[in-house]
């Protein structure tokens, strides 16, 4: 069972999360200008690397936030986890993390 470092909650067992597959996928639009090939690519085609995979995870039984992770598909090691919307930190950099887990992005409340 993987140990996943949620950027908001810290390391938690895999059973608290749901994997959302490959990350950094832009939804093509506007719909009137998307070719069948582009749309098919968005729906069905995914990278399948032997090595580092940039993917999304959802902390469904915890803070219920989505975040990104760079995970090695061979060793299952997580190199880094980083916030949704951020660029994946390069090897050597660390993800910039928020000060307190209670901070809410976007200032909605």
């Amino acid at each position, binding site marked *: 069972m993987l140990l996943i470092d949620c950027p908001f909650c810290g390391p938690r*067992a895999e059973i608290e999360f749901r994997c*959302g597959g490959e990350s950094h996928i832009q939804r093509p639009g*506007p719909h009137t200008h*998307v070719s*069948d090939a582009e*749309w098919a690519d968005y*729906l069905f085609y995914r990278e399948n690397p032997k090595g580092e995979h940039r993917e999304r995870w959802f902390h*469904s039984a915890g803070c219920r936030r989505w975040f990104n992770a760079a995970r090695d598909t061979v060793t*299952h090691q997580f190199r880094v986890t980083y916030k949704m919307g951020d660029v994946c930190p390069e090897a050597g950099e660390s993800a910039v993390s928020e000060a307190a887990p209670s901070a809410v992005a976007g200032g*909605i409340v």
Partner: protein
Amino acid sequence: MSGWRLKTAGRVDRGQSIAFQWAGRTLHGYAGDTLASALMANGVSIIGRSFKYHRPRGLLAAGLEEPNAIIQLETGAVAVPNVKATQIELYEGLVANPVNAKPSLEFDLLAVNSLFKRFIPAAFYYKTFMWPNWHWFEPAIRKAAGLGDAPEGVDPDSYHHRFAHTDIMVVGSGAAGLAAAIAAAKGGEKVLLVEADAELGGGLLSEPSEVEGLTALAWRDRMLAALSDMPNVTVMNRTMAFGFYDHQLVGLCERVTDHQPPSQRSGPRQRLWKVRTKRVILATGAFERPIAFSGNDLPGVMLASAAQTYALRYGVAPGQRVVVATNNDSAYHAAFALHDAGVEVAAIVDSRAKGGDVISGAAERGIRTIMDSAPLKAKGRRRVSGAVLADVADGKARDTIACDTILMSNGWNPAVHLHSQSGGSLAFNSSLEAFLPSKSVQAAVNVGAAAGIFDLDIALASGRAAGQGDDIQAPFPAAVGPTLHFADGDARAAKAWVDFQNDVTAGDVQIAARENFRSVEHLKRYTTLGMASDQGKTSNVTGIHMLSNLLGKPPQAIGTTKFRPPFDPVTIGGFAGRAVGENLMPLAHAAAHASALAVGAKMENYGSWLRPAYFPRAGEDEHAAVAREVLAVRGQVGLFDASPLGKIEVKGPDAAEFLQRVYVNGVRNLKVGRCRYGLMLSEHGIVYDDGVFAKIAEDHFLVGTTSGHAAAIADMLQEWLQCEWTDLKVLVENVTTAWAVMNVAGPKARAVLEAIGTDIDLSRDAFPHMTYREGLVGGVPARIQRVSFSGELSYEVSVPWGYGRALWDAMMQAGAPHGITPFGVEALMALRIEKGFLHVGSDTDGTTMPQDVGFGAAVAKKPDDFVGRRSTMTPEGLRADRRQLVGLETLDTGGAFECGAHIVAADTKGIGATQGWVTSSVQSPTLGRPLAMALVERGTARIGETVQVWNLGKGRPAQIVDPRFYDPAGDRLDG
């Protein structure tokens, strides 16, 4: 000619006699015996019959690597099939039976299989019993195979799951493990020591030599005392580490009550632990290798170290006259232990030219040693009667020594299972002829015999170094002697067993190589070598050696098969834990559950909710109850608990814009206080959910979903907001279980609400159909939507969940003078089919798009993108012949159509090309005739056309119609 109890020796408590049952006979053993040692002490030689050939088998080992002594423990619901006799701690009144032998072990009818042995070698079922149809033979072959019987009845035991964290886990409590645990604990960190056996000490429990100046047992006791004094140490016995998973997670199986008589057990039978640990020290020991000589499966042939364990730990001798065959020093100690306990050792047969220093011990005891020799064949029919020896150089038979026991040792295989499961690699060591752990990829180290370190002093040093976190010095190990291999095609190889439990011989390995199954994974699957419940602990490496010898490829190049958890079998109940019975898929109860039960509701499982299907009165079957309920709703008023209905609050300045992107329908133009029926698609353009959404205030919507999809849709909305449309200012909250909903529906519905009392103006003009109002109902804050799935005047009254049952009760009371009738899901389905209302999942499937269910115009009218829109514009989505939802009327008197019945062209004779199928069907109580809905190719353009429905093997005529059978204009809704 069989085992016997030694006068002294052993750790069994000779003051505590235990009576037990074996194959219907009452026998006696001592506290501290295993079932295996007790059987051996009672002279039981044949313990089982082999899996395929039904050959008589005795004990091969003393521990969990035992392949032969598979027995059926206890009877009835507590029966455990396929347990190893070596793993059962003897308790008073234990009942054990052999398996795979009818009528008895001594006389097994299926031993006739042995006569046909040469026609049923490995993989015979790929080549024979195929013509004319292999299905004929399969049941008989399956019945002849197998060992124990699955228990009858539900497992009465409970199993718990626990999580734990520790700093250092030490697996195994032999010499190296104990040394490692003490050294680790002295560093102050949290240490967890786990041991699969009931007693700690591993090999120390049968070790005759001294350890650091003390007897092995005294040294062990001292270590255990020290460990129990350290507060940072936890010791768990009867706890097997069965799996080493990702990120330092180790799975443990703790057997809590298995060693007690069933009548005395209380509490959980076993606990499954998931332990996250910073470091692991694997002190898992090693398994001795058997020698593959002809007849090596006869009762009386045993591993040398096993005989030593039986003698020194359990006080049992394996036989009267013993020959010890070996290629290394360790078996000499077994010979000495037996000799010193009073057993006659006829000879030590060593395949090496010169033995080690240990050979002087043989001379001192007057034990004959025969060098350069190996066993060729065991003589005997149901028990060893002699050993035929051969010269290692030429393999030719030499002496025959009369004996009733042959002990064998062909070297030792480190137990590398957990190391390999963790991702660690192995390297073949040609001195030891064994696979040793090489690199670890997780924080784990191997010590002692698990690392190929068999010298006791060096093993202790390795444990201490590992405990302190230092590097381990690996010594250069002493080489084992040669192994006599059968030449390819030698018929005697067919009687030399490799995998005892699955009945795989050296001859089978030769067949595999000959037929080009040359990879180690193919060897395994083609012969089933290593696939039995012992997972090849005494056979895998031997098979690899043989394959290496046959192919002329080094064992390193052949490699091992993949190691997978569990290391040793774990009962399935352990993995299930508490998620059994009703706890596996707990069904939620609707708000008025208790009140519904009180009036006789017949409950059913509707997608994770337990809901009333119908409310039968005395003498009513389902059909009659549903018909009565439908007519009551249409004629007077009905009450339905709609609490499971999905409710999601969507609030914020961008709420309307957000929902505009989620729904097929327009949302932005919806006014406050109004409701709209909407469709949600998946990104593949498929109809995913339908429901009513309401604008309850500025920037505040209530999204209704089907009860089954509420949580998934709330998650889906979050996903869009967090991952894609991050600039939208919207809050989403799933409030499904915060609000109970009572649906009062029928011409008298308004009267019932008025009778309860509300401050909401219920008049038709103030509160029209498809609008939303808030206020007090019966003094309780309520949200009401005039929404109708039944097709009658209908109010869905939401109150905070805790008031739900009281609201139901109040409505039943207020509605009594109006003939209020509770109705269930089945009646609701009949009502909505009469109205031609679609039900997602019944009238839609994984291909249905909005244009198929009448939403083509709504999509065309909407300029914006929404989830799934682009997928409706693919060539598949734009096809003119898509199946569309229509109604069907029967044209005969054959009753209602079956759901799934296919529509074919009217003139079809027999079975024809499908044009669609029936999706919903009911014998309408209101209209007194069968009604159906169906997805039919080009359906809407074909309204009026006659077709055929292939229904239960008969073609029946039908007419395609508009599905709005009852009140097509919707007048009843506006009441």
